[in-house]
């Protein structure tokens, strides 16, 4: 009995020994490590490539990633950043119909002036006759007016940036160099943080260089990251490039109001006098902490939202009301704490404020010193990033799509329709 026990113990230890040797030599872990990140990748294009053909007019298609929205009569023009412009028949805001898609590579913004649609196409400005939105014609191409991209005239190439997903793979566990119970975490942290800094583009729906258009007094004003470009469009089919004005870094929005241009940037709000439309002059800059800040304006007040976020570091989340009766000296009247305010829309005395993932708020702003006491509605479930008060409906751009609301009763929004998007915005 005892013998047998010792024998079986021996056998067991024998098996254990064989197992140990086998496994220690072959127990290799399998690791597949994937680093996926989005980055702006330089792409070199031939100028002749995008200039040879007129922009293609294609049948309407699904919105992928809506950028700027422009209301033009019964039609909605929705930019698809870097790709082109959707035209929708919005005669009935309860059921907008997708009509056409104008394929314009490199397009980021648009503006419409007396049946003429102005849109950028990499380096060029295109003009379309949209008097009949069902039969759009390209009428003009103004070349080399957006030369913020790196261009090489001799070879006819230019560089643009493309929002790209890059992937790196490895079969090693990162940050682990053997040993036991201990591992190095710092290495990975810095790796990931580097990635955060390569992803560019802050504003909603943007990818690559930003251009923002606005029209006032037969002049087209386009702002990109740090410049304001002025075009004379009095001959509406033949825009003339006039001048470039440097603004400083981080320009986000441009809002025209009564011969003035209000330009929102990361560091403040610039006010330009455009009484002489061809040469806007700087009136003042209202500086604030670095934050992302859409602007809307009425006769006396400017409403600016500041928010925190990935590319709006050190930001605060608030709505600021400025007194702009003296445009040379805008004064901060009051700040109201908000959750994460994005875009704004002002319709008369009602201010609609997109709170990102926190919903949408509306306020009566007749008394600017008591806005917090005059909240009309707070729709927590209506995630939103931007708001456009249109003549027929209030257009709300949110992560799930472009929705329209009846706002004839400003305190009570009634949903009319929603256009789904393929790549929803993250808020």
């Amino acid at each position, binding site marked *: 009995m005892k013998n047998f026990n010792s024998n*079986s113990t021996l056998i067991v230890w024998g098996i254990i020994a064989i197992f140990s040797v086998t496994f*220690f030599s072959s127990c*290799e*872990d399998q690791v*597949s490590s994937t680093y996926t990140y989005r980055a702006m990748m330089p792409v070199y294009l031939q100028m002749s490539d995008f200039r040879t053909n007129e922009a293609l007019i294609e049948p309407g298609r699904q919105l992928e990633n809506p950028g700027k929205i422009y209301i033009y009569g019964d039609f909605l023009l929705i930019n698809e950043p870097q790709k082109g412009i959707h035209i929708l028949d919005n005669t009935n805001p309860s059921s907008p119909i997708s009509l056409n898609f104008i394929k314009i590579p490199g397009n980021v913004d648009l503006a419409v002036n007396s049946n003429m649609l102005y849109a950028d196409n990499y380096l060029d400005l295109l003009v379309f006759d949209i008097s009949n939105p069902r039969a759009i014609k390209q009428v003009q191409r103004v070349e080399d007016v957006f030369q913020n991209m790196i261009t090489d005239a001799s070879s006819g190439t230019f560089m643009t940036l493309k929002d790209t997903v890059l992937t790196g793979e490895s079969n090693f*566990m990162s940050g682990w160099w053997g040993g036991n119970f201990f591992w190095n975490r710092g290495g990975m942290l810095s790796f*990931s943080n580097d990635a955060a800094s390569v992803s560019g583009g802050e504003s909603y729906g943007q990818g690559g260089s930003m251009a923002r258009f606005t029209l006032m007094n037969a002049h087209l004003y386009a702002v990109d990251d740090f410049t304001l470009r002025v075009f004379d469009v009095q001959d509406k089919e033949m825009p003339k490039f006039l001048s470039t004005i440097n603004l400083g870094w981080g320009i986000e929005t441009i809002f025209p109001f009564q011969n003035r241009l209000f330009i929102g940037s990361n560091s403040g709000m610039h006010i330009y006098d455009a009484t002489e439309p061809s040469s806007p002059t700087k009136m003042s800059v209202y500086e604030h902490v670095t934050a992302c800040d859409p602007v809307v304006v009425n006769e006396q007040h400017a409403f600016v939202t500041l928010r925190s976020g*990935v590319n709006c570091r050190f930001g605060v989340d608030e709505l600021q009301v400025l007194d702009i009766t003296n445009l040379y000296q805008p004064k901060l009247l009051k700040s109201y704490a908000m959750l994460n305010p994005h875009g704004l829309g002002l319709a008369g005395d009602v201010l609609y404020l997109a709170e990102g993932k926190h919903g949408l708020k509306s306020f009566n702003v007749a008394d600017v010193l008591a806005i917090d006491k005059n909240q009309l509605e707070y729709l927590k479930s209506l995630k939103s990033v931007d708001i456009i008060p249109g003549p027929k409906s209030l257009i709300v751009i949110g992560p799930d799509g472009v929705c329209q609301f009846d706002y004839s009763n400003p305190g009570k929004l009634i949903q009319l329709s929603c256009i789904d998007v393929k790549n929803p915005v*993250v808020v």
Partner: protein
Amino acid sequence: MSQFAFGQKAVGSYLHHIELGAISGRLNNSIRLDYSIQSFHGIQLDQKNKLGFFVGFDSYPKQVLMPLGFGWRSSLNPNRRNSLNIGLDLGYGSSWLDRKEIEGVFEKWNEGGVMLSPLVGIVRKSKNGTMAYTWNLGFRKQFASTFEGVRSSGLSTIEGIRPGYDSIFEESYVFNSLTLRWGILF
């Protein structure tokens, strides 16, 4: 000799098996060595077989997983004082213990996965027969992953990356480990 000599549990009785030991494997061309703890609760199905569930802690580089699942143990020669034991644990290594770390837009979290572990060992019953000591050697296959992401804000999603993130660092593992554990069965 009676059928239940040396503390052999009566069929249908409850038993508890606590084990602790080491878990080891080869990773990045070097040896990893960590701890492994397991608690098995089961019943004696018949003279040879035990069936039950287990819960434990296995430490791996970057994460500690909590394996949960069902286990089977079989004694090949239950009437001997030292008996050869084989078994199989099948379950899920859960990462419930690890909280998602959030620092601003940076997020870090772990996910567990399926766990499979055949084992072989010896059970040596105590002299008075109330308990037994065990030495188990097992092979343990554990699927798991770790993620580190930078949340995006204000950008629309783009195909090819998890929605809501500007960057994702994902590592998925199949840990092929050897476990060596000492335990008490009572």
